[in-house]
């Protein structure tokens, strides 16, 4: 059996940090646009749609990279509940970064609106137009976005806990490719 790496694969790290920026930007764009009646609303919504599809595509690549590469193990002395929480929160993050763009796409479809990524780039509808389905999907999109933001905050707090309090290799394994000297 091969020895497990101590750090994440470079492609996995690139995807992690790129998507971290995109997802946090996306959460702020969404939170801002639903609370605005100014032209910012229009500007943000025109960013929100193509960025969401970009996140969906990258999330698919990321799941493939995750399955194709080995991840560094968690520290041996990590309490069981923390190891469980780590696994569960990562699973939730992956699920939400796939589900939220799909819900956004589906809710626009259910509203009977053309799914436009720009002034002329149009995606097909993925669910038939139905007002009640729209209301359900639109609410799910909002509530799950709050859940994603909370999970991101938890993820950030846990990463800093590993780096600043436990001072183990967990944060480092995503920050750099090899051990500190």
């Amino acid at each position, binding site marked *: *059996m091969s*020895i*497990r790496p*101590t750090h994440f694969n470079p492609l996995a790290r690139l995807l992690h940090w790129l998507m971290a920026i995109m997802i*946090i930007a996306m*959460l*702020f764009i969404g*939170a*801002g*646009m*639903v*609370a*605005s*009646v*100014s*032209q*910012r*609303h*229009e500007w943000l919504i025109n960013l929100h749609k193509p960025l969401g599809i970009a996140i969906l595509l990258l999330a698919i690549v990321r799941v493939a990279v995750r399955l194709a590469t080995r991840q*560094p*193990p*968690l*520290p*041996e*002395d*990590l309490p069981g509940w923390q190891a469980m929480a780590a696994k569960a929160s990562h699973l939730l993050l992956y699920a939400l970064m796939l589900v939220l763009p799909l819900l956004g796409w589906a809710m626009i479809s259910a*509203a*009977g*609106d*053309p799914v*436009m990524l720009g*002034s*002329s780039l*149009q995606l097909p509808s993925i669910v038939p*137009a*139905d*007002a*009640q389905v*729209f*209301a359900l999907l*639109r*609410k799910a999109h909002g509530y799950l976005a709050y859940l994603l*933001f909370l999970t991101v*905050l938890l993820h*950030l*707090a846990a990463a*800093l*806990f590993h780096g*600043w*309090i436990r*001072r*183990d*290799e967990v944060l480092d394994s995503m920050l750099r490719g090899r*051990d*500190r000297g």
Partner: protein
Amino acid sequence: MVDRTSPSGGPQRPPLSAASVVLRLGGIAVVVAALAGAFAYVHGTLDPQRLTPKALVDVLEKNNGVHPGFRRNHAKGVCVIGHFESSGEARVYSTAQVFNDPRTPVVGRFALPAGNPYTPDSAVPIRSLALRFTQANGQQWRTGMNSMPVFPVGTPEAFYQLQQAQSPDPATGKPDPSKVPAFFASHPEAVPFLTWVKTAKPSASYATETYNGINAFYLVDASGKKQAVRWSVTPLAQDAAGATAPEGSDFLEKDLVQRLAAAPLRFQLNITLANADDPVNDASKTWPAGRKVLNAGTLVLEKTQPQLSGECRDVNYDPLVLPAGIQGSDDPLLAARSAAYASSYLRRTSEVSQLPATRQEARP
């Protein structure tokens, strides 16, 4: 064979002092709180005074009551089905397929600009017409038009204040009659609208009115050149125009059903081209006469459908749903309409099962 690394992965680190642990935990709390605080700021949570889509729809509900499943404004109406026959005249100015194809299907809606679906037809001197053109390429053009030539105000903030002036006073349960005149006294931009509304009478028919897009848009040609425009539809049949409204509260829909049973209704789509210095960001200002007007084609309305079961029910006539070749201007009312309609649309689509017709249909 190891599944977990050794505790430190390297040389043992000296344990942190209690003070240091507290300080570092505090540091983590600060980072997390900063991000959560920024999110709350962007979301408007920290700023209850911010004008949000929710606030705009809430004030409409406060003034009109909540009528579950109905639009929060223009609540009483009727669906119309038809098509648009392009004349080709707008083709030079816009690449939109609707101006190039000979025929584009339309789902429209005539309505009263009031938030109560049981408002008598004679209570408001304004009628509205919303249209959704579905192009062959799947793109859509949606527009909501009114029978007035200008909007009373030019900004969403002023519109909100005008609604607030009509809100019931908590002490009396009725609007304070001094508030609307006070609002208009401090909003001189409303003069063109007030001048028009003085002579406006509730029409006896939807079919005899001219409907104005009011907000400005841009037509975009193949080279990307933009031309600021406003559009309107005017009836081609001139019968009975200006007839006074009959008694009764629901004559508009009956009149429309009768007319369409006899023959389709035809309207001309006029597109007015702005001159260089005409205001494109202020719907409270008219454009001077003498502007070039294109006859873009003919809107043919063929049949009606009840609004509670017709195709228009689930359409959000968001004025910023536009095909390639038409763009919104920087009129601040456009973005505000788009944002507020989305909020109203979510509320009413969540209440579809409470609509009267839906309940009737559910009966055996």
